[in-house]
C-alpha cells in the first residue's frame, strides 16, 4: 500500500526509541490489535484502555473501559498517562430472552443499529446486558462490543463474569492468580440515562443493504420503500428489492469483528464437504497468528481450501482498501466486517455486512443466503 513502508519503518524506530513492545509483522503473537490484546490478556476487567483505532471498543467485552481515540489524544495519553474526557452519559441495552438458532452476536448489534440508527449511541457508554448477552461466549461478546463505534457510542462494555475470568486465566500478560473482579458489575437499581430493551428471540439474521451499518435489514426482508437514493445508487439496488438470492462476486470472512477461532469454526461447519459457487472469490483471513495456528491444528484451513476458499495470512486484510490489493472492479461483496461505506473495500465495491455464517452460506450458493 502507498506509504505503508514509511509507516512500518517509522513505527519500528519510534517503538525502539521509546522502549515500547511492538508485535511486528513476523512476531509469533502478530495479529489485529483487538484480537491479540484479549488473546494475550493485555486488556483486563476494570482497566481503562485506549488505542488510536475506532474498534478499540471491542475490548469492552472483557469488562474494561476501552475506547478509540485520534492521534493527538494518543500522544496526550503517552505524554501524561491520562486523557481529558467529558463524562459520557450511560446507556444500557438489554437483550432479553434467547437467540434463535443461526442468530449471532453480529445480528444482535446490527439489529440495534438498524433500529436506533448509526448516531443512536452518541454521547453514551453502552452496557450490553441481559440473558442473551450472558449466554454469549467471550468471542461473541467481542463481536457485540466491536460495533459499538458503528452505533457512535464512546464504547460498549459487558460486566465480567466467570466466563471472562476463565477466558483470561493463564494468558501471557494476565496476572496470576487473577484478582477478584467479581464486583465489577452494575449495582441493582443503578441509574442509566437511557435504556433500550430488545427481545433476543425476535432477532433474525441481518444483512446490510446500503452504505451505512444502520441500513441493515433481516435477511428475509426487503430494502425499505423510503431508502436513501445515494445509497441505492451506489449499491445498485431498488427500493422494495429482496436481498435474499442477490448474486455476490466475493465472500470475505475476517476483520476485528468476526475473525476469531469460534467464527472460523462456525463458518467451516457450513462449508465442510461443499464447494464455493464457480463465480465467487471466497477468502478467509484469521484475526491473528494464534487464531491461524489453532485453526490449522484442527484442520479448518483444509476444510476452507477444499471448499475453494483462499486461506490467508492473519491481519486486517481487505476489510478496507488502502491502495493495494482490492476486489475486481464493481464487485458485490458479502463480508463479515463492520463497515459498508462507499469505497470502504475499494472504489465502487459494494459491501454487504453480515455474520460469518451468512458469508459462508452465500459463498456456497453464489447468492446472499441464510445459513
Amino acid at each position, binding site marked *: *500500500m*502507498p*506509504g505503508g513502508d*514509511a*509507516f512500518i519503518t*517509522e513505527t519500528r524506530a519510534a517503538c525502539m526509541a521509546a522502549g515500547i*513492545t511492538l508485535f511486528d509483522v513476523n512476531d509469533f503473537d502478530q495479529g489485529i490489535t483487538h484480537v491479540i490484546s484479549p488473546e494475550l490478556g*493485555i486488556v*483486563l476487567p*476494570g*482497566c481503562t484502555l485506549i488505542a*488510536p*483505532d*475506532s474498534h478499540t471498543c471491542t475490548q469492552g467485552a472483557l469488562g474494561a473501559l476501552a475506547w*478509540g*481515540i*485520534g*492521534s*493527538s*489524544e494518543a*500522544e*496526550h495519553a503517552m*505524554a*501524561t*498517562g*491520562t486523557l*481529558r474526557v*467529558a463524562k459520557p452519559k450511560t446507556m444500557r441495552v438489554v437483550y432479553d430472552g434467547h437467540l434463535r438458532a443461526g442468530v449471532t452476536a453480529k445480528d444482535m448489534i446490527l439489529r440495534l443499529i438498524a433500529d436506533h*440508527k*448509526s*448516531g443512536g449511541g*452518541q*454521547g453514551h457508554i453502552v452496557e450490553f446486558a441481559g440473558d442473551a448477552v450472558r449466554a454469549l461466549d467471550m468471542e461473541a461478546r467481542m463481536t457485540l462490543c466491536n460495533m459499538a*463505534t*458503528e452505533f*457512535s*457510542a*464512546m464504547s460498549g462494555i459487558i460486566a465480567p463474569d466467570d466466563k471472562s475470568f476463565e477466558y483470561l486465566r493463564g494468558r501471557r*500478560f494476565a*496476572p496470576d492468580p487473577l*484478582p477478584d473482579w467479581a464486583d465489577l458489575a452494575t449495582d441493582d437499581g443503578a441509574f442509566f440515562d437511557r435504556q433500550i430493551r430488545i427481545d433476543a428471540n425476535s432477532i433474525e439474521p441481518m444483512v446490510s443493504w446500503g*452504505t*451505512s451499518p*444502520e441500513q441493515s435489514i433481516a435477511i428475509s426482508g426487503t430494502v425499505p420503500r423510503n431508502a436513501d437514493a*445515494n445509497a441505492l445508487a451506489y449499491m445498485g439496488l431498488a427500493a422494495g428489492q429482496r436481498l435474499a438470492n442477490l448474486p455476490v462476486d466475493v465472500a470475505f470472512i475476517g476483520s476485528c469483528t468476526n475473525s476469531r477461532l469460534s467464527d472460523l469454526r462456525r463458518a467451516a461447519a457450513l462449508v465442510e464437504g461443499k464447494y464455493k459457487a464457480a463465480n465467487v472469490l471466497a477468502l478467509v483471513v484469521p484475526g491473528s497468528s494464534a487464531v491461524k495456528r489453532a485453526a490449522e491444528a484442527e484442520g479448518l484451513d483444509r476444510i476452507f481450501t477444499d471448499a475453494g476458499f483462499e486461506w490467508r495470512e492473519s491481519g486486517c486484510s481487505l476489510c*478496507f*482498501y*488502502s*491502495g493495494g490489493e482490492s476486489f475486481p472492479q464493481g464487485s458485490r461483496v458479502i463480508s463479515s466486517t463492520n*463497515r459498508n*461505506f*462507499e*469505497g*470502504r473495500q475499494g*472504489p465502487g465495491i459494494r459491501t454487504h455486512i453480515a455474520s460469518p455464517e451468512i458469508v459462508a452460506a452465500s459463498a456456497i450458493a453464489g447468492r446472499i443466503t441464510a445459513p
Partner: protein
Amino acid sequence: MTPFAILTSIVAPLPRDNVDTDSIIPSREMRSTGKTGLADGLFAPWRYTDATARTENPDFVLNQPEYRGAQILASGANFGCGSSREHAVWALAEYGIRCIVAESFAPIFYNNCVRNGLAPLVLPRSVIGTLAGGTATVDLARQTVNGYHFSMDADAKMMLLEGVDAIDLTLKYRHAITDWQTKDRATRPWIYLEKRT
C-alpha cells in the same frame, strides 16, 4: 494551534447524513505519517471523477466557484463517523475548513477537531438549512452562529478559543497524576505488572 476567533465565511452545503472519515479522506490518500500533504485527498471519492488524475467532479460542492474558498461546511447527522483517522481533520484543516456545522458528530472525530483548531458546531437540522449556502458568522466566545445559540463543552471551547495544547494543560496537574498512580499501583498492582512489559 491557531486560536479560534470570530469567523465569517460562505457555508458550503454537504447535505448528507453519516459522512464517514473514509469518504473525507480514503486511506489510499494517506501516503505519509505527517499531518500535511493531505488537502488534495480531501473528499477524493466525491471531489474527483478520476482521483488518480485529479479530474474534478463539477457537481461536488467544493468544486463550485462560490464554495471554493469556503471555511465552513454544513452537513447532516453523525458527521465524521467511522475510522478514527485524524487525517480526516488534518485534510479539512489544510484545505482551509475552520468550522463544521452538523446535526451531530461521531465522538472521535469531534475530539480530533477540537485538538486541531477546527470548530465542530452542533445545531438542529432546521438551522443548518438556513445557514447552508449563505454567509455565516461564528462567534465562539458567545456561542452563536448568525445569532443562533449552540452548546459546547467548556473544555473544548477553551481549547479552541485559546488555541492551547491539551498536553500542556494536563501537565499542570502532573503531581496529582503521579500521586494517583502511586495509590493505584498499591491497589491494582496488576495494571503495572513488570511482567506486562
